[in-house]
């Protein structure tokens, strides 16, 4: 009998049909990845396996059997016995998925005691045991820590430990590594792999990242609009996709070995940072987010800045555009020292939601730089805004719409149009595509490239995704703990990294080829420190 048997599953949230007649099954001990872009319904499916839609107003039809339990028909009590004991779930954001007020060990013990009639002490011991199992060093002591005292990777390990506590038959991992840095992601994926090998439990992995799927599962199910597009062994699907959508999806995934082509780079230096430093806090508590960083941006060139969270890349970006004053060091624009904001240096922000004022029409937002530099002629402003909208690939008629009426990719285009309105020479892009689905991501990256060629813009492209950065950059600066550890032409840095940190980063990038992934995993066998 299959571990999971989903037949004709549909889930509706009001008028929205999130999952549409989906059927699939998962054998005991097998691993399946649900892959899809946002809105494809993959997380909704994961929730349906544990009956989490019950009581939320969602309409669930079809049949779901998990580890012998008919989820649709089960009583609340039966459902509770299924949850955690037979099928356990690991969530995306490990910080918010744990109760901030209780020690990690207590939370695991609490869950354990729901399913096992054991004493408090016994449950605590079990918690320490599973924490040790997932590679938490000094588990006895650390089990008394609260979630915020753990690093992101450790928290995800703790969540996995919680899932392991009752020895479930099925582990459902919903975007388990999305919130993590690439090196930590590799460790967590390795851990899942090892655990599966040792316990023989089944794995249902929900992810938007094809690379992550390639690393971890046997079978892959590509989803779109709530339905299945393609299902097959991971090697087959990735190597020879049968469906056009799958191909499109795979093509859009940036490759870490893809070089940049057709760069309009010149030698003319536009913007320079010299030994900039930025501290936050005062006195003894001051922390340097950026420390003694010097970078040069040339006309027509893209400078990529990569680094993991906390490396100071966003702070650097904000200093380059003048939103933050450097504590020390100086900026030079076209050879002249300068401070504060400068219309010629613009920025494209990470979050397309928060970078547009929800209460103003997009046309108004784009017109801001025009008005700010003194333009009063409404006709000309309107004309210029329509032109800009058109230039970034949007309908000029959308001038009067509000941000929430646009998709993420479209909003990012609006952000670009606003930056362009100031006729900048430099645009600092702070994670411009990391909130977007891969297909959209590719389009936005392409747009930026076009604009650069056309307008001779200098771009600073800040991202955590090594593959994207390689795709767009002429030069690359690798940042770690506020400093640039390695800087040079992109090809040099990627192909023959000098620093071991750079090498570690590159080794952690998931490969699309499952065999390559297996090789890399073997190579990575270093102490698991998240």
């Amino acid at each position, binding site marked *: 009998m299959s571990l999971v048997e989903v037949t004709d599953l549909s889930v509706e*949230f009001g008028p929205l049909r999130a999952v549409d007649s989906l059927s699939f099954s998962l054998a005991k001990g097998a691993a399946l990845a649900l892959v899809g872009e946002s809105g494809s319904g993959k997380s909704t499916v994961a929730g349906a396996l544990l009956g989490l839609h019950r009581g939320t107003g969602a309409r669930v039809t079809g049949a779901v059997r998990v580890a012998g339990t008919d989820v649709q028909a089960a009583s609340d009590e039966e459902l509770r016995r299924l949850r955690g004991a037979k099928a356990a779930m690991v969530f995306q*954001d490990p910080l918010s998925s744990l109760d901030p007020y209780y020690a990690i060990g207590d939370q695991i013990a609490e869950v354990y005691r729901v399913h096992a009639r054991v004493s408090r002490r016994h449950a605590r011991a079990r918690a320490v045991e599973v924490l040790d199992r997932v590679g938490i060093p000094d588990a006895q002591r650390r089990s008394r820590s609260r979630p915020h005292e753990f690093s992101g990777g450790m928290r995800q390990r703790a969540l996995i430990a919680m899932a392991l506590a009752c020895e479930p038959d099925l582990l459902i991992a919903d975007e388990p590594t999305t919130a993590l840095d690439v090196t930590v992601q590799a460790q967590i994926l390795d851990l899942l792999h090892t655990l599966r090998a040792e316990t023989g439990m089944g794995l249902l992995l929900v992810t938007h990242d094809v690379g992550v799927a390639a690393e971890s599962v046997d079978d892959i199910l590509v989803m779109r609009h709530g339905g299945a597009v393609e299902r097959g062994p991971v090697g087959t699907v990735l190597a020879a996709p049968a469906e056009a959508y799958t191909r499109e999806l795979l093509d859009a995934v940036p490759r870490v070995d893809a070089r940049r082509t057709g760069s309009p780079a010149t030698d003319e230096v536009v913007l320079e940072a010299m030994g900039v430093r930025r501290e936050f806090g005062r006195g003894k508590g001051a922390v340097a987010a950026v420390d003694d960083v010097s970078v040069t941006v040339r006309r027509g060139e893209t400078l990529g800045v990569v680094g993991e969270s906390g490396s100071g890349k966003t702070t650097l970006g904000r200093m380059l555009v003048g939103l933050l004053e450097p504590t020390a060091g100086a900026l030079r624009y076209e050879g002249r020292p300068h401070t504060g*904001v400068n219309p010629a240096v613009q920025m494209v922000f990470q979050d397309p939601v928060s970078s547009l004022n929800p209460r103003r029409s997009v046309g108004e937002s784009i017109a801001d730089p025009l008005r*700010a530099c003194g333009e009063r002629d409404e006709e000309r402003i309107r004309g210029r805004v329509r032109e800009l909208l058109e230039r970034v690939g949007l309908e000029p008629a959308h001038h009067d719409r509000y941000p929430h009426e646009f998709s993420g990719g479209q909003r990012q285009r609006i952000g670009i149009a606003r930056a362009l309105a100031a006729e900048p020479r430099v645009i600092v892009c702070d994670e411009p595509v990391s909130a977007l689905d891969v297909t959209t991501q590719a389009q936005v990256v392409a747009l930026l490239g076009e604009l650069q060629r056309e307008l001779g813009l200098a771009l600073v492209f800040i991202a955590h995704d090594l593959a994207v950065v390689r795709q767009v950059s002429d030069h690359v600066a690798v940042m770690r703990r506020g400093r640039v550890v390695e800087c040079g032409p992109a090809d040099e840095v990627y192909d023959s990294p000098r620093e071991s940190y750079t090498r570690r980063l590159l080794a952690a990038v998931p490969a699309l080829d499952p065999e390559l992934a297996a090789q890399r995993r073997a190579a990575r066998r270093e102490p698991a420190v998240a």
Partner: protein
Amino acid sequence: MSEALVTVEAAGTESSVPAASGARQFWRRLRAQRAALVAAAVVALLVLIALGAPLLTALEGQDPTTYHPSLIDSARGGVPVGSLGGMSADHWLGVEPQTGRDLFARLVYGARVSLGVALAATVAQVILGTVMGVAAGLGNRWVDLVLSRITDIFVAMPLMIMALALLAVVPGDFPRPVLVALVIALVSGWSTTAKMVRAQTLTLKNLDYVAASRLSGWSTWRTAVRELLPGLAAPVITYAALLVPTNISAEAALSFLGVGVKPPTPSWGQMLTSADVWYQAAPQYLLLPAGALFVTVFALTVLGDGVRVALDPRAASRLRVGTGSKREARAEQAAPQAGTRARRQGGAKTEAGKEDRA
């Protein structure tokens, strides 16, 4: 106000996540809540009654100041003659002990003063609080320090004492309702509003769209007006809805201490103050203003909650608590403190002027 408390009602007025635009959505979400709708209707009715007081009393054929000595029993302390406090076709809700003035007329005219004073005080609190809060939030360290200190001084000041002192200082011919409203506003409410607005401003000013506005070349002031104020509107309106009932009670408390609106102008607070001793001899005299006050405060509070939900999309989505993780790809992981900070700066508190009711 404690820093912590500014966070406290995180659920209160959170809107660092920008609310979807437009009055339409607001109405749609407000309409979805039946209790809030009923409350809105009640509040609207009360406002209508207050505005239409002259009309209503004309309909009844009475006015709030004329004495009717024949309707009270002078030998028994002036208790209304007849059953139910002298209710009759002429005097729909009976008459006031000791004077025989018409209670219905006093009640509806009292609504004018009580609601008027409360609303005026709320407007003053909101304006003062917003200006101080925005200035502190946007200013440099010193401006922030000085303004926050001033705010603290008002927080630490015992409300009633300052009210008593201020009301004694101001010349007697200053229009009393205006003065009462100003005093309530000055000594309570605005400081909590300012703290809340400051916290909101700190959150909002770090939002990318505010940064984008600055990059466009706008001045800080222009940015504040264009980008921040609309964002502040939701939490401030929500907070204001909760301030109104507090201010109504404050007016009543000032009346009790003998420094409220002056006779013969009726106000609910004043009626309550003189009515409480009549609880046994003429219960309707106490129950009418108490009931009116209760209905008003109740309706305003329910409406305030409704407005909050309608302005805060998160509150609406809170109704669904499935797995529905719509956030698929989030790139840079927030550092632990960063998350908490945002949380700390998120909310506001509904604590203004508790002293006056105690």
